[in-house]
């Protein structure tokens, strides 16, 4: 969808755009249509200060001139002034901000120093001094405002540029030999256009406000030419007798300022909508009563039943997880395996009520210790999170707050979950770090997250997760971002924690090696569904779903030294384009006509082995 179509889908934007376009039209037409207004010193003095009526739609001013005519003609001066200020701000602020943010070093220091200098100057005094040199010059006044306001935009542009500069696509463009100017205009500017637009529209509104003030002081527009600020001044002089006189110019100024800032926001949203992520919404508990909502049998710590998760999409909600059922017994390690986009991380996040973005559980139940977490209110979920179920994420560094020492972050969790005293929490935090096999736990506790390696940060993350002595640890790809040697240590640690603390672990991974190393049971997911569930050995020895089989075969660690590595042809179909029949059928080498006709149910295939495949009997014999 093009930028303008996205913009026109927003009613507020359309209203603001229509209003601003009308203002521009009036600015062009009114002075031509009513040439006498600009030079009219006085109207019918006997008909001064009239209330709105048929002959004068908005009444007349203190000198008997028609208010509507002056408002319309004064529009041009006002808009030209705003445009002058805006152009000055953009011409100075954007290039300087880009240069300071992208080049850094001396350029940055000089530009920032100049900006600080400008900030320290008394703006109004300077504008008044400039206007005393160029009396009544709108151009001089507005350009001066632009120069003084430019550092504001410059800082916004600079701080938006800094993170973009670190992106790899900037490096790739540099490696391609593209010039700095090209990279700045095409790559950086397109990324930061949103903040520039939003900030510039606010500055335009500020310019309008300042202009009104200056016109009010009679510094900008020489009488008798009309301006909105001058009209407010005129009205103020008779405020007690004829208060309505300031109403129409006042309303015009207020509405225009509002329209500028709202339109700026809408333009920004429309400009970035094509590529930016969705907004986050608060968690919503599932309202409907559970179908046959009986707590599951004892012995199972976590029982996920027919779980469904959906995210709002372009056309209605998108189901990304459907009919997912599995359980975890106390002290057991269960792995959820699958490719990216199969819903395994979403499933893990749904269990603990931490779905990203605007995702929500829309069916099924998540039973944990007698409570259905899918239907639990936030107040009920609070005591469970951290204390009964803990979470370890894929990005160890991102999960720690860079502003606090790691010891303090573990202590915070301990005091919150265990109600320990300050001293007690400190001692326990060191103990937890010792359990993570740090040689010098006290020294580690004093460190800030940036002083740790990725593997150490993940150990600290696990230590913090254990602060509440949870019965279940959910680990979402806990070792994917780590070096192989560090991964081996973290896996060792998880195994040991499970043995010594009888803690259950639900681990999400795409690595069969991790599964083989750690898991007791395995849940294989494909395109939002569970396709196979079994104990760990049968999964490796005799997989009963073609997807599991193909996924095992396409592991480059196992592959023989051959010219081409075995792969699964095609890719996981994205949510919304799942086929009606078996979702894997298009990529499956055993697929027959029946596979594509009806949805396939998951069924038992002997013992605890379950599979969602019509032909698993043949697969078992093959």
């Amino acid at each position, binding site marked *: 969808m093009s930028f303008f179509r996205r913009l026109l889908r927003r009613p507020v934007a359309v209203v603001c755009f229509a209003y601003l376009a009308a203002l521009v039209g009036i600015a062009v037409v009114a002075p031509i249509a009513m040439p006498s207004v600009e030079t009219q010193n006085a109207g019918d003095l006997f008909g001064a200060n009239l209330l709105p009526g048929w002959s004068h739609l908005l009444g007349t001013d203190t000198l008997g001139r028609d208010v509507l005519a002056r408002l319309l003609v004064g529009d041009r001066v006002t808009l030209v002034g705003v445009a002058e200020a805006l152009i000055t701000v953009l011409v100075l602020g954007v290039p300087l901000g880009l240069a300071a943010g992208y080049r850094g070093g001396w350029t940055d220091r000089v530009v920032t120093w100049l900006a600080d200098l400008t900030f320290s100057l008394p703006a109004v005094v300077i504008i008044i001094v400039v206007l005393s040199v160029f009396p009544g010059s709108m151009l001089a006044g507005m350009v001066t405002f632009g120069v003084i306001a430019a550092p504001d935009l410059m800082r916004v542009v600079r701080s938006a540029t800094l993170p973009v500069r670190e992106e790899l696509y900037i490096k790739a463009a540099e490696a391609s030999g593209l010039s700095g100017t090209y990279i700045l205009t095409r790559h950086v500017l397109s990324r930061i256009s949103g903040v520039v637009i939003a900030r510039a529209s606010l500055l335009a509104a500020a310019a309008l406000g300042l202009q009104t003030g200056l016109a009010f002081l009679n510094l900008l527009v020489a009488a008798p030419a009309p301006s909105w600020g001058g009209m407010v001044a005129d009205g103020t002089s008779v405020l007690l007798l004829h208060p309505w006189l300031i109403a129409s110019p006042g309303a015009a100024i207020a509405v225009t300022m509002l329209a500028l800032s709202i339109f700026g926001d809408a333009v920004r949203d429309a400009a970035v909508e094509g*590529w930016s992520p969705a907004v986050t919404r608060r968690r919503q508990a599932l309202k409907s009563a559970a179908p046959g909502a009986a707590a599951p049998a004892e012995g199972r710590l976590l029982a996920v039943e027919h779980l469904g998760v959906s995210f709002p999409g372009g056309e209605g909600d998108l189901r990304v997880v459907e009919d997912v059922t599995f359980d975890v017994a106390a002290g057991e390690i269960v792995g959820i395996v699958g490719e990216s986009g199969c819903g395994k991380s979403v499933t893990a996040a749904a269990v603990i009520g931490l779905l990203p973005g605007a995702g929500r559980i829309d069916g099924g139940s998540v039973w944990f210790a007698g409570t259905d977490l899918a239907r639990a209110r936030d107040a009920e979920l609070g005591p469970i999170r951290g204390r009964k179920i803990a979470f370890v994420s894929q990005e160890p560094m991102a999960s720690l707050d860079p502003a606090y020492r790691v010891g303090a972050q573990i202590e915070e969790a301990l005091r919150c979950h265990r109600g320990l005293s300050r001293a007690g929490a400190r001692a326990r935090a060191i103990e937890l770090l010792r359990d993570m096999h740090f040689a010098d736990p006290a020294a580690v506790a004093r460190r800030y997250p940036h002083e740790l390696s990725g593997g150490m940060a993940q150990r600290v993350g696990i230590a913090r997760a254990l602060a509440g002595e949870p019965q279940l640890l959910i680990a979402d790809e806990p070792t*994917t971002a780590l*070096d192989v*040697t560090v991964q081996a240590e973290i896996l060792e640690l998880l195994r040991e924690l499970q043995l010594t603390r009888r803690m259950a672990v639900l681990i999400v991974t*795409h690595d069969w090696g991790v599964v083989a190393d750690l898991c007791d049971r395995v849940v294989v997911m494909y395109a939002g569904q569970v396709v196979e569930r079994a104990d760990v050995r049968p999964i490796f020895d005799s997989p009963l779903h073609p997807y599991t089989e193909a996924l095992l075969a*396409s592991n480059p660690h196992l592959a023989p030294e051959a010219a081409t*590595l075995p792969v699964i042809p095609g890719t996981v179909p994205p949510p919304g384009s799942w086929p009606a029949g078996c979702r894997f059928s298009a990529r499956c080498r055993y697929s027959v006509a029946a596979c594509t006709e009806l949805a396939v149910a998951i069924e038992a295939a002997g013992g605890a082995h379950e599979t969602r495949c019509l032909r698993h009997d043949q697969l078992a014999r093959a």
Partner: protein
Amino acid sequence: MSTRPLLSIDRLRVEYPVRNRPPFTAVDDVSLAVGPRETVGLVGESGSGKTTIASTVLGFVPAAAGTIEFDGEDIAGADRGRRRRLSASLQVVFQDPYSSLNPARTIGKTLAETLRPHGSPSRPEVAQRVASILERVGFEPAAANRYPNQFSGGQRQRIAIARALIARPRLVICDEPVSSLDLSVQAQVLNLLRGLQEELGLSYLFISHDLAVVRHVSTRVVVLYRGRVMEAGPAAVVYEQPAHPYTRALLESVPIPDPDRQRARRAARPRSAPGLPVTAARESCRFAPRCPWAVDVCREREPPAEATTEGVLVACHRWREWATVRSREKI
């Protein structure tokens, strides 16, 4: 090798300035060469200096000592103009397919801009080249009008490969190109890289922390630890019979997808307590603080690189004892 190498790095040292302290040496005395149509794997953990080497070859980071020759021309201190010309033959694929494509630009624009610095081909020619490279990496030409957020990680990485190849380079530096992908998708991307190499006669400098992946694509492998070469040699030999304890540690750490064998391996693996990063004494072997087989001599002298009979260079005081242990273990 009889032919002249395409990329030849000789005794490279790279330093990063540290405030109020002597500079940090990220790469120390590293030499390697990549021949035409050859893939050299650069393996090591984070902090081993492998990405720094890539950045230095690409000119993002200056070399403190040593030379980098590309096709016989020293490019270590190349200026902007030289770099611009060089970018036609030297391209890069980064690790993170999410950060390496500008989310605000369509795929077509991202691909086309790589051609800008090298003559100005006409619009139809650019469109045609974009379409044909997209097709080669497995997309419909219509993908050019879409934004990166409409593609998965593996698809984005194929687009990043297309961007590197559209200018028809001779050497592509692949900086962990598959590390952030699913294992099943890694195979697809590795096959693509290999197919393109045969078709276009490319050379790769292939950086990864995963020795198993490197083995599949590389003719030769260089194993780095803290900026130094620990072991270098033919990929199959290094993978099958690692001569350095560090290489062996890397191989043993990769969990294998077989529950019984993996659990046996894990039980047999020597354990080391993780501490705060230990900096080895200046003159000791860098791996000594972590090495389960370190003896006094390892902490006293830096081991020289020695050649084994299989054509492998190894920097370890005890590699000969090791070789005998290894052959005994095999029986």
